[in-house]
């Protein structure tokens, strides 16, 4: 449904993305993951037809975005990173206008606008001026505007950013509800979001595609073992030796000592929760257990490990300043 071939975009001397290629099949929900500034929005904008790529080409449902822009764009619903809608229109009028811009006749535009209102939970505010509505509502209007005209492809650029947790859950449910009906490319820098709703993940970093796989496979690839963080009041060397002897522990690393306490990072076999075994090992020796928690891998670590496992011809430098 979406075919991006070797996309490169340069603005002057600045290269926003380089050699980005991927395909998204019909009915798939694919996550587009990367830190801020990785080139997600640039790629999304190229796919949506905001501007053409410097090199490479994009086809949406078989239509080239540059050579056949009107046909390609007619099949795309786009939700921009910066949600921007006319503040001086009512919600209902705005969605009718969007339908007409997408080539629907007035009556059909009104009908589809009403349907989009309903599926995005906007009925209560349909006659309100958009300028008087909260960010959460505007975000939903942005989604409703993308859905209007029943495009087969949806490009959603960070649809959950800036929402409160309840709204995030609603938004995810809404997107999950589109599975099989629409093809969705969803950009985000939030990892759980991708795990929650996406069939496959494209990871982009510094304008290049690092990985393209299912979330489960990626997890296996970047989480060879689990990590538990422990802080104990007791003799450092002895604590480390004792915890290292607990069955299932692969390695123990002493992070810091001082004030009679020691902080350790314990790597364990994947999919095993050794917290209770570690706790009893500490207390049996009469030491004070101050902290014990499983440390989830941060996005930063996942990127670092992905970068480290990539063959060197595609990655020429190790990033050191990734935002989490």
């Amino acid at each position: 449904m979406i075919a991006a071939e070797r996309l490169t975009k340069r603005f002057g001397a600045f290269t926003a993305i380089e050699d980005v290629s991927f395909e998204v099949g019909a009915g798939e929900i694919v996550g587009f993951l990367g830190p801020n500034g990785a080139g997600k929005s640039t790629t999304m904008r190229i796919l949506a037809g905001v501007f053409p790529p410097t090199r490479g080409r994009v086809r949406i449902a078989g239509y080239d975005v540059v050579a056949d822009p009107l046909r390609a764009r007619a099949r795309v619903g786009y939700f921009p990173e910066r949600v921007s809608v006319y503040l001086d229109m009512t919600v209902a009028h705005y969605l009718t206008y969007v339908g007409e811009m997408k080539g629907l006749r007035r009556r059909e535009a009104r009908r589809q606008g009403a349907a989009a209102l309903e599926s995005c939970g906007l009925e209560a505010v349909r006659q309100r001026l958009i300028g008087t509505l909260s960010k959460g509502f505007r975000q939903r209007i942005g989604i409703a505007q993308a859905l209007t005209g029943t495009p087969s492809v949806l490009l959603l650029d960070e649809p959950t950013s800036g929402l409160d947790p309840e709204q995030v859950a609603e938004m995810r449910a809404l997107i999950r509800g589109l599975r099989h009906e629409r093809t969705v490319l969803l950009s985000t820098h939030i990892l759980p979001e991708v795990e929650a709703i996406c069939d496959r993940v494209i990871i982009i970093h510094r304008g290049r595609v690092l990985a393209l796989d299912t979330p489960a496979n990626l997890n296996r690839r970047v989480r060879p073992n689990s990590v538990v963080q422990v802080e104990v009041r007791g003799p450092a060397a002895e604590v480390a030796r004792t915890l290292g002897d607990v069955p299932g522990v692969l390695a123990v690393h002493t992070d810091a000592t001082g004030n009679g306490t020691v902080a350790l990072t314990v790597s364990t076999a994947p999919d095993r929760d050794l917290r209770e075994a570690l706790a009893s090992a500490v207390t049996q020796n009469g030491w004070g257990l101050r902290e014990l928690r499983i440390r989830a891998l941060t996005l930063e670590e996942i990127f670092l490990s992905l970068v480290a496992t990539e063959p060197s011809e595609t990655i020429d430098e190790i990033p050191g300043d990734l935002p989490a």
Partner: protein
Amino acid sequence: MKFLVICRRELSSVFGAFIAYILLAVFLLLSGYFFYSDLIFFILFGGFTLATGLWQFFFLDMRLVAMLVLPLVTMRLLAEEKKLGTIELLWTYPVRDGEIVLGKFLAAWLFFIAMLVPTGIGPLVFYHYQPYAVAPVLAGYLGMLLLGSAFIACGLFVSSLTENQVVCAMVTYGILVLFWFITWNEEAGMQEIMRLLLGLSLFDRFFNFTRGVIDTKDVAFFAMFVGFFLFLTWQSLAARSWRGVR
């Protein structure tokens, strides 16, 4: 026909805001006052004909009001879309850039017509008491329409360059005033340059219309002026491909 959808949205947005009525009121007030004082002037001091004694002054005065008001109409056209970011969505709809430019231009042009029509009240009342030849007046209004189109096209182009509406109005004033004054210093210019500048001057072109003369060369000039600035606007929108989108 997407440009009609754009034009309709623009108009509903313009008339939904208070500023539209302020601009209409000021335009009507000033042009009404000018008609009144020009008429008094004509009655007291007379002239060879109505065309040179009254209408010419009326249209020359109204030209000033149009120059004052139209940049305030055009400043928001694209600048506001850029500031809000709504233009990005516009670019992802199946609509050509040319249709966006055309729709915006048409909306401002229709608003200008809404400004012009009530100014006919004065001449209409005058006709009721003292019938006169209407052709010169119609020529003058045609000139106003063409001159207004030129102002709008120029303002629309400036509006495509910036997202700051005040900057936009100021730069439009700058360009229009430059086009006005361009031929004032006739003695200083070399003759060849002066001929070229006279050919470019909006206001010298407008002068014929105010005397009731419609010259196809003048009409063609305004059409080209409008076309040129609409083309520039179109190019300015296309520049996002190398300049990016904020």
